[in-house]
């Protein structure tokens, strides 16, 4: 971010793109690098942080940075084709330019979580903010306890980061549980909703942190089930999203109660959110 003017974006060149999911609302991953390599000297992001990604002449939208800072030399964003900005971003491919303004917002307190067992519970595109958490722990394996990845989507085609998920299945020090909502031929894993899979896996709340991201309805039932399993609100983290324009706590619109999602969030402990009725509106 420009030191003196937080509205000015950096230019990035797209190095590589890939489609995570098919369909009208397909998800495309962009792997990008700053055109001015010097930006890396001051750029420092943490898992959970976001950036405004855009195109000059079209606009910007807020996305989580889906790469961990331990993946050096590039940034990753996974974008679902949905509205004006995301459709314009989807037109871009390797060699094209985008703008990035960030890093913005707060982050998962991974330093505080050292020595703990971490459970991530994701649904659909909600895996994007969990990906940097998972990869950060994988890169700092000895600093954390068990890592459990629970992830589901409507169909197997809607799972993001499939290549990585496959390798997770056989990776040491990581347990991966996948699900799809409805029965599918050849699907070897769980069939049902993510909150149900969570109860099947039934992680122990002892010395554990649960992080969940996904559709609001999934988050609601995941939190209910985590509480049933004995997780205290302080052990549960999630990220919120709302429409944003400035990303720096000025333009107003992303507030839930007195908190700005862009600035006070997007990462919140459930102990904070449980007292904010607008958090899950």
């Amino acid at each position, binding site marked *: 971010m420009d030191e*003196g*003017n*937080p*509205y*000015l*974006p950096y*230019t990035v060149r797209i190095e590589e793109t890939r489609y995570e999911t098919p369909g009208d609302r397909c998800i495309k991953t962009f792997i990008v690098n700053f*055109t001015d390599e010097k930006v890396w000297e001051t750029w420092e992001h943490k898992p959970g942080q976001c950036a405004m990604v855009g195109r*000059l*002449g*079209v*606009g*910007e*939208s807020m996305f989580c940075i889906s790469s961990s800072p331990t993946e050096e030399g590039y940034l990753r964003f996974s974008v679902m084709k*949905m*509205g*004006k900005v*995301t459709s314009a971003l989807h037109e871009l491919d390797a060699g094209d*330019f985008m*703008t990035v303004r960030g890093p913005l917002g707060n982050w998962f307190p991974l330093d505080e979580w050292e020595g703990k067992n971490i459970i991530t519970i994701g649904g659909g595109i909600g895996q994007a903010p969990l990906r940097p958490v998972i990869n950060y722990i994988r890169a700092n394996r000895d600093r954390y306890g068990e890592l459990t990845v629970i992830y589901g989507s409507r169909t197997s085609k809607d799972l993001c980061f499939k290549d990585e998920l496959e390798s997770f299945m056989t990776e040491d020090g990581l347990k991966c549980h996948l699900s799809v909502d409805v029965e599918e031929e050849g699907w070897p894993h769980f069939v049902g909703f993510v909150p149900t899979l969570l109860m099947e896996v039934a992680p122990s709340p002892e010395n554990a942190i649960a992080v969940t991201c996904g559709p609001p309805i999934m988050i609601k039932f995941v939190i209910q089930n985590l509480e049933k399993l004995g997780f205290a609100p302080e052990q549960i983290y999630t990220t919120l*999203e*709302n*429409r944003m*324009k*400035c990303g*720096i*706590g*000025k*333009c*107003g*619109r992303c*507030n*839930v*109660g*007195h908190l700005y999602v862009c*600035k006070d969030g997007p990462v919140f402990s459930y102990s904070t959110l449980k007292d904010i*009725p*607008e958090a899950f*509106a």
Partner: protein
Amino acid sequence: MGEYKFSKENLGKVLEALKDYKVYAPQKKADVVRFQELSDPSEITLEFTNTNVPPKEIMFPQTETLFRFKVGGQDIEPRVPEPTDKMLVFGLRPCDARAYSIVDKLWQWDFIDPYVKNRRESSTIVGFACSEPCANCFCTSLGGGPADEENLDAILFDLGEVFYLKTITEKGDEFVQKCGEALESAGDVERKNAQAQGKEAIEKIRRSIEVEGISEKLPGLFNDAIWKEFSSRCLGCGICTYLCPTCHCFDIQDETEALDGRRARMWDTCMFAEYTLHASGHNPRPTRAERTRNRISHKYSYFPEKFGVVACVGCGRCINFCPVNIDILDILGKVKEA
């Protein structure tokens, strides 16, 4: 602190002498008094209760270019105002000056907004004490007053034959140095008259609200029926927020014309459905009830919780200009009763 006076007919002379400043002053255009850059000193009017559009537009224009670019290019040309341009805001009401300092807390929160900051730091603020408050003024309920000096560099009183000018800060003294020979020093008579006028003006204020306790009470009324009740006749026009001196919400849009492009920000309002509409179609504030709740809660609960001050100065504009007579004091009264 210095005390001065000048005869009313010398107002033009005083303004004429202020060549070092870019002067913003109330001017009557098409029957509406509004703050604009003063190119001709004779255009100023000080015959008004308050301007419809608050002088927030001087610091935070309704539409402002953030940067320019060429279509197809990647180079960005920032359009931040130079901090060295000396600005003089002359004749604004004390409530509107207070609003500047309230919203400053947001502009300078963590990320500093260089556009507003540079204007604020370059500006000298000369207030104009109220002698005739409007029917819906309630500034005294919020710690302000018709002759309140908070956030002013100097304050002007209309004493009938003459203007009495009192400086408050060094910036105010610097301004007086530039005012030229039309200024005479003032004394006990003018000071006493100004004080008496200020007191009388306070007595003329007819509306009030006991603010204590509202901030703590609002979160508990999140799902209360009052929001539907008070928003049922709301047209969603947003005038209550556009004309509010502390409302600061904005949209950011890219605009292109041939090969010239700009990213601009423009006033926006939480009273519009699009304000919070997600690309998915989901809207966390789907009806005017939730939007009204946000407007009131933001001013009287969220902003105080975050920045320690109520984001309302009691100027009465949202009451005066609401086309369906929705009255913030009625809503706050109901909040207190609930």
